[in-house]
């Protein structure tokens, strides 16, 4: 009486229900402590330097990251202290874009992997959903985030190296110059602001997996670039990583004219959300005509930055 996969419920045809569910909705409401950092024992420092977490077993849905996902509206709220200083939501976004570039440029100097940048920017953006730029100077928060992210992502960068490169990059602008102790101090504040939730899930891993499954690995570079660009936005705070990855694949496949219709239609995913994310990404490109190397135009950003207090 050994039956194979039983067919009792097959061919019932019309009675299948469409069991889509809203992506991003947390599946379990019970609050859990920090997400497990995987089960891999950490080898002695220096033996395996960094970048290990990217391949570890992990479950996003039980992570703090998943539980801290926000609605778009929540992300755009300008903290009261900044509002008092006359910072508009648009300007608030501009600062974040500008500082994302800052982190990116700094990271390029100290040579870390992309995931460190991504984590740093995520920290940065997450901090300002809770704290004001008035209270936490973004010019200091940015390098501190990179410093912290480099630790979390296991490719530590020395603080003095950061200080050195900041001086080199923004030698003329005193407002960006900080000492090592400033960064170390800010690191502590950051930890507190982040509520010590440090593990971030990025779209890169699902991106590769999904591209593989769709059989369009030739789009890897293009889609990767799109994912990189999403960090100029707050998408990482709003959507689960795989949705961002899907949106990037969606854009890439449409732009590169790959027929992924049948692949997407088989996915148990609300394509409207994917489309919306894609539109958001395209809107970003459309709205901010950014210099790919130097970031926002100075005449746009400098007045905004001037609204914020510089270091005492």
């Amino acid at each position, binding site marked *: *009486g050994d*039956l194979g996969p039983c067919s*009792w*419920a097959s061919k*019932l045809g019309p009675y299948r229900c*469409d069991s889509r569910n809203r992506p991003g909705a947390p599946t379990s409401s019970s609050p859990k402590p920090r997400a497990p950092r995987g*089960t891999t024992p950490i080898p002695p420092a220096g033996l*395996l330097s960094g970048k290990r977490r990217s391949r570890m077993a992990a479950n996003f849905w039980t992570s703090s990251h998943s539980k801290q996902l926000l609605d778009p509206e929540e992300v755009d709220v300008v903290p009261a202290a900044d509002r008092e200083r006359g910072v508009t939501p648009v300007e608030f976004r501009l600062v974040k874009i500008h500082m994302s570039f800052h982190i990116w440029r700094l990271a390029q100097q100290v040579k870390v992997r992309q995931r460190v940048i991504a984590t740093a920017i995520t920290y940065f953006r997450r901090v300002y959903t809770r704290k004001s730029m008035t209270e936490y100077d973004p010019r200091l928060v940015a390098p501190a985030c990179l410093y912290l992210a480099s630790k979390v992502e296991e490719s530590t960068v020395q603080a003095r190296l950061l200080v050195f490169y900041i001086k080199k990059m923004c030698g003329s602008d005193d407002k960006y110059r900080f000492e090592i102790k400033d960064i170390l101090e800010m690191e502590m504040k950051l930890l507190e602001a982040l509520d010590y939730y440090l593990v971030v899930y990025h779209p890169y891993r699902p991106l590769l997996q999904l591209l593989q499954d769709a059989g369009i690995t030739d789009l890897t570079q293009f889609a990767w670039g799109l994912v990189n660009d999403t960090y100029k936005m707050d998408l990482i705070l709003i959507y689960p990583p795989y949705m961002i990855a899907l949106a990037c694949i969606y854009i890439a496949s449409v732009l590169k004219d790959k027929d992924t*219709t049948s692949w997407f239609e088989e996915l148990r*995913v609300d394509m409207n959300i994917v489309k919306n994310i894609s539109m958001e990404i395209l809107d970003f490109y459309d709205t901010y005509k950014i210099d790919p190397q130097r970031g926002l135009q100075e005449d746009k950003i400098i007045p905004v930055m001037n609204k914020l207090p510089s270091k005492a």
Partner: protein
Amino acid sequence: MQRYAGAGNSNSSGFSGGPASAGGRDSSRLDVSPYAPPNYPLNPRRQQQLAPYRLKCDREPLNNKLGPPDFYPQTPNCPEETLTKEYVQSGYKETVEGIEEAREIVLSHISYFCKPDIVGKCKEALKKRLRAINESRAQKRKAGQVYGVPLSGSLLIKPGVYPEQRPCNEDSRRKWAEALAQPNKRLRLLSEHVPHGYRRKSLFDVLTRCNVPLLRATWFVKVTYLNQVRPTSSSISTGASDNQRSNQWTKDVVEYLQQLLDEFNLKEAHPSFKEQPSAGLISGATQVKLKHEAPSAGGDTEEPLVHFKWWYMVRLVQWHLTEELLVPSVLIEWLCYQLQERDSVEALELLLPIVLGLVETITLSQTYVRMFVEILVRRLSDASAVDNPKRSSISSVIAELLRYMVLAVPDTFVSLDCFPLPSFVAPDVYGRGALLKITGGGEMSSSKRRDVYRYLSCGYAVCSIQRRASDLATLASPNVHARGAAKVVQALDKALVTGNLTMAYSSLFNDLSDALMEERWIKEVSPCLQSSLMWIGTVELSLICSIFFLCEWATCDYRDCRTSPSQNVKFTGRRDLSQIHLAVSILKNKMTEMNKLSRSKSSSRIAMNNIGKGSSLNDASVAATKVGDSSGLRSNGKNEEEKKERKDIFESPGPLHDIIVCWLDQHEVSSAAGFKRVDVLIIELIRSGVFYPQAYVRQLIISGVTDKNGTLLDMERKRRHHRILKQLPGSSLFDILEEDVVAEEQQLHEVMSTYSSERRLVLSELSSGQSFDANNRGEYTSSSYLRIPSGTNHGGVPEQVEDVKVLVSSLLCFIYPHSAESEQNETKMNFQGSSTSTLTQVDTGEAKNGCEDCMRINGQKLDERTSPFFPLIQSDEEDVWWVRKGTELQESFKAEPALKSIKQTSRGRAKVVRKTQNLAQLATAKIEGSQGEASTSHLCESKLSCPHHKPSTDGDNGKDADHTRMTNLAEVGKSLKKLRLLERRSISVWLLKSVRQLVEGNETTACKASNSISSFSSQPDDKTVPKWRLGDEELMSILYILDTCCDLASAARFLVWLLAKIRGGMGTLGQVGRSAAHMKNRDNQVCQVREHTSCN
């Protein structure tokens, strides 16, 4: 305590649970498990290990292939958990395929999207794509397979996945059922009001009454049972609840079938049933039939016939079996029970269609097959007993069923004792006239012919099943030891130890009887070769098999079967080849026996004489020239007409030869040792006259094996023959055949010449177009030789052999005629004048007659054919002569190269001479250095020299340095090892022959000179009759050489012969010389002598 228990258990299991070893306390444990693993008590503890941590995720998978999104469970081969050398040195680094590490940061498309209109266009394209996706999804959703995943397990828990049943009144329920039966009513609408209350019998009743189409009926059944056995949330897994439903459904089906059957029984006398013709038993026919029946049954809504209900159920069951909704085992067991219980043909008729539907499942289980075959065979004999059209149709179905099972699972039938089946199930293909009966029908249609073929093939299957069964029975029977093979091996091994061949002989030819093995074995021989062998058809398969077996046993190099104590005695580290000698003597015996038989049958064949047969080893008077035992096919050439003789010698000497050729054709050798054994076997067989290489070559040519260039197998065969043939160069073969007096010498020369050219031809053909070893010795295959058919070498004794002979002669201080070539020329001419041989001057003369003149001069009456050497003795007073002769010789050496170029002899000859020269010089030098030292250990300081020719090496005395001798001996050994086995054999033959002649020559002189001191070292009473002494050193060297030549058998014979000499000498001469005593002593300690040699 735990530990002790473990130890105790291990002990008791070690002593196979003997109660004596167990104390009183342990006795209770002993009977529990004396065979338990030693650490049994520890097992529970081990099982309590922590379950490995598993990441869980209750999200749905993204699609069929991908798991849940953003979820990465542990994998067994996590790259960062595996430390590779690279990781240790430079750390783990994740790489992204398709992106360089440096580029992963810089990648950005901000600039790309800065171009005008790009974003707008892209947005449009995105929306378009989305519409396409959504449309396609909508279509699929309509078709009910949005995700293409069957609903199962947790998916079923969700509400609305399958239609719910609703309570409703009787009337609407009936209406609903009628609607269900109508194909035009859509299931989607019906699903909204699936009525409650149709369960078990009522469900079947409604289905049969309305004759609901099977597809819709199945749908209804599924809905009903999904509602009945509700999927529970988590506790029960998918499979479990599915199984539960299947079990429930099967139980209900069986119950209902049972009810119907019972009804049939009650209505047995009912006319309506009786009228039914035998409804088609094969399902296809059933369905066709039911189409006719359905309307009438449908019209009679009140009470459909039981018969109709039954066939509806049969169809439903068959349908649901293919959909795997039913549990086959339950049905099968029920069927089996019914078939056993109900004897009536009618019941059989009803049940058989279900059996047909289940037959594939039945064949999967040996138990079921056993059960059903038993029942079916019984019912078949019952049914065929009565002549009745219905019965005949039933029995044909049963026969078909049985045939199917026989062909589907023949293995299962091996263990069933159901044969012979009735002849109309399967023919007895070996029975007389069975085929005639089948094919005798004359013309038949193609379909019928197909039936006949199937019928026949079933017969063959049955036949092989029976054969297999009987094979197994024989194997299992304790009386037969693995078909006698083990017994034969035992007997052979025993014979190896005891030396008694009788048992082994009779065992080999009587106990080995395995028709299967025989057939298989002979099939491995290439058919073209087989057909070209004249004897192979006349011998029985069992004889072939026995001889194959013997050869395999002899050449098998991975079994060490000896148990004799001498096993530990190592001589020269050589492999033990006694098995081969044993095999050869058995074959020789067999040949004698067969010859006797054939002679008694016809006396017209050439007379065989077994001269050597009776030669006992002690009999010194037996023809002194014969070393070997010359039994078997020896024809005394002088008595026969030469032509006939020559023809005969190229023919296969007898069945044994042909069998061995066959064996060579199929024998696979895997190791070098194996090759050596085969070589030795072949050579021994040649020497004993069982195997004729010249006939073998002919057979290869005739069979066309050389031309076959097809399969890999053919190539392999060619390779085998090539290898064997390469080991049998003509020249050395000549020596061996000559020594064994296979034919008259003159004739032998011609034979060998023909053989050589034929061999070259075959070799070149065998190797043509093949990658293997295009022959390392060019002279055998090179085309230049092929152009001269009777070229210089059967013949032109290969230089290496000559080299070695010269070396040996110089070592043993007797002369080898080559060195005195110039003087031989005249003799040669004489010889040639008298002979019609096609051979060239060089080989004939030098090999055979080189010393004739010497002999004449010496006045010795040695046999002309077999005395190529001279005993040369040099006594002290001949010093002067030696010096004189020596210089003379030097001169002749100097003249040599010139001679050579004139005669166009090969380059090697010059080398030989040079070597000899070197040896001579070396020896002279040594002698000078060690003048005057007398070795006390050497009593027989034998020297040899020739009064006319060259005194080869040693100067004047025996102390001429052991050292020199050892160097020479080592050199001899080295060069011997470079030779092929047959060549080595030719050397050993030559050596022994020469030594015998020398010794016997001495003897003759000794007899003449009655006052000699000893028979071996008799003083020359005349300066012209010098003597050669067989001394300690010489004997040791001879034995060493023989050993290196793998010719221990000859060595043993030689020693025995020597012993006889000594005894004879003592007897006739009455003079007990010290040397004789010494010889005797030495004979008893052959090993010591040899060890002595090798140690130095």
